[in-house]
């Protein structure tokens, strides 16, 4: 494999890791606050459909992103009501909302555009354009680092940079703000938070809302930046891979970045079986690369690659003492 191919792979890795990263950080807020969310997939799908539709109808990608966040927030709200207000089963609620999203996105897109559940392709301002970072052109000829900067780091749409910026932001919010401390506390010991006079319900709803916003960005990125439009089931299990990355990262933001890059790299490899074959000198079935993130997650869960300990109060509704 030559340097140019490697750069191409890394470039694709960053493109494919971004939706995983948004969704993974989304899950991180929710699960750190004690609300399991296996509905990341559904929220992404809803956001992808809403953002592509609105971006097409208004011609503005920004309106599309807002609509995507809005659609994702609606599902997040239902999940919050079911699991916080009515203390329902969080896992079942997530599963249910994934099915609702899977069906309703096709229904709406079909009703709006009549193209078999797709949106028409997005063009011009309805899509995110790549951003060329400063000096990328000028530094292109610097050996090794120049092409790396030009090909891999520069030239992505805005949401990619936002996604990567969300990692340090999340770290700062979780570990350096009062809100973050309380958020982590409510996922470990809600009774203590309640005793301190802070609203458990309020904190958990705030966390679920952040999850909604980030999943909205993940879906909007899929439909308006990675691809040009919405297609049925276009998230293709990315919500679950993000969940896997979250466990792989043991619910920590910086580790989540590496996990998402790793899983994004696998997805990039799955697109280039010829490269894999060239490096390993034998044929690897593409499906094996597809399955690798899931296999790795099982290994992590099994405790072979360090122990993944979830937030202690995760999945349990909080019942105030009377």
């Amino acid at each position: 494999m030559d340097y140019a191919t490697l750069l191409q792979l890394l470039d694709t890795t960053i493109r494919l890791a971004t939706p995983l990263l948004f969704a993974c950080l989304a899950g991180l807020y929710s699960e750190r606050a004690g609300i399991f969310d296996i509905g990341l997939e559904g929220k992404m799908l809803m956001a992808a459909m809403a953002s592509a539709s609105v971006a097409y109808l208004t011609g503005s990608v920004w309106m599309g992103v807002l609509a995507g966040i809005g659609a994702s927030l609606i599902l997040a709200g239902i999940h919050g009501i079911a699991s916080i207000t009515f203390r329902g089963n969080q896992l079942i609620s997530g599963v249910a909302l994934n099915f609702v999203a899977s069906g309703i996105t096709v229904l709406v897109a079909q009703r709006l555009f009549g193209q078999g559940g797709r949106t028409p392709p997005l063009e011009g301002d309805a899509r995110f354009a790549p951003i060329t970072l400063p000096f990328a052109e000028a530094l292109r000829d610097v050996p090794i680092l120049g092409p790396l900067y030009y090909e891999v780091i520069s030239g992505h749409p805005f949401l990619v940079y936002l996604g990567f910026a969300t990692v340090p932001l999340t770290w700062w919010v979780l570990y350096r703000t009062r809100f973050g401390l309380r958020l982590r506390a409510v996922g470990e010991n809600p009774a203590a938070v309640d005793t301190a006079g802070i609203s458990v319900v309020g904190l958990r709803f705030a966390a679920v809302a952040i999850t909604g916003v980030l999943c909205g960005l993940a879906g909007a990125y899929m439909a308006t930046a990675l691809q040009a439009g919405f297609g049925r089931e276009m998230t293709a299990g990315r919500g679950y891979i993000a969940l896997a990355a979250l466990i792989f990262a043991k619910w920590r933001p910086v580790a989540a970045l590496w996990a998402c890059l790793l899983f994004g790299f696998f997805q990039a490899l799955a697109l280039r079986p010829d490269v894999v074959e060239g490096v390993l000198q034998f044929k690897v079935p593409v499906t094996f690369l597809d399955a690798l993130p899931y296999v790795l997650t099982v290994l992590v869960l099994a405790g072979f690659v360090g122990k993944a300990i979830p937030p202690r109060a995760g999945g349990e509704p909080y019942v105030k003492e009377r």
Partner: protein
Amino acid sequence: MERLPNWADLVLVPLVSLLMAAIIAGVIIKILGESPVAAFKLMASGALGTQEGVGYTLYYATNFIFTGLAVAVAYHAGLFNIGAEGQAYIGGLGTGLVCLWLGESPFWVVLPLAVLAGAVSGAAWAFIPAYLQAKRGSHIVITTIMFNYIASAVLIFLLVDVLRPDGQMDPATANFPEATTLPTLNQIPVFNLFFTSKVPANVTLLIALAAAFGVWALLWRTRLGYSIRAFGKSEDAARYAGINPFKITMIAMLLSGALAGMMAINNVMGEAGRLLQNSASGAGFIGIAVALMGRNHPLGVVLAAILFGFLFQGGAELGMWTKIPIEMRVVVQGLVILFTGALDVMVRMMLTRIFAAFRGSKTAKGAV
């Protein structure tokens, strides 16, 4: 707070949940520009109006009985098995291989072996998640989701690179030998009084009903079943009573996987006659809705499975004859899971209020 009478909790809660899902579905159909009443009539005539329609409804119901029982058995042990889909895939692999290799043998040899292979393969696919849950405390929900994807990858690999006959384009095995064809309901006494022409529903329906009875007998009439239910109600209490958590988790999940795997007799051996890539087509997930709707009781599961068979076949008719896409049935499935599984507290609270108001007015009258 007052409590609901037992019968209302058992019967009314699922029915009200279903009603609420139906109302939302009706509103969605209205928004799509169709009439909900006409849509329901079309579903009813398509799923129940003809022999072929009933045949398909029962065919789907057979799948859902297996997956519904699979989810229900695990649920009684306090385990949420989202992996029935993957277990059904691998069950299909086992059944398919038996049909390919031994298909020429006499029917009475092939069928039991095919059933056994489906069950064993499905159980094998549930083994690792079960073991990880029991020994390592890895959450069964996450591992079974992962195993669904891994199952799908395994199957695609085998069908594309190993089992596909030379010269065939689509990823599937060769057709099973003629001898593996299962008798359909029109060839079975009693049923042939109703079904006069060939229908997809086959003898597997009877196996499914037998499985439902078996699950009932196991859970409510044996010591093991009692241990499973006790463990699901309270792990600590069960442990204190000397019930081995590892053993119960393993048994419940293996049974669950076996039931999901046995679905393959219906769809792989019965309907397709060869192993296809997407053979389970979501039945494993519908099992979640069926189990929740049927309150995890075998009788409830059978009734809910028939209801979902109706929904599935009726939804296909809608997709064919109206502007309502076939995805409508996934929405309804999701809504039913949401209301019966996650918002059940809300439904129960509503009903309790209504009952309290009803009683209140009665006593008020009595006082006068």
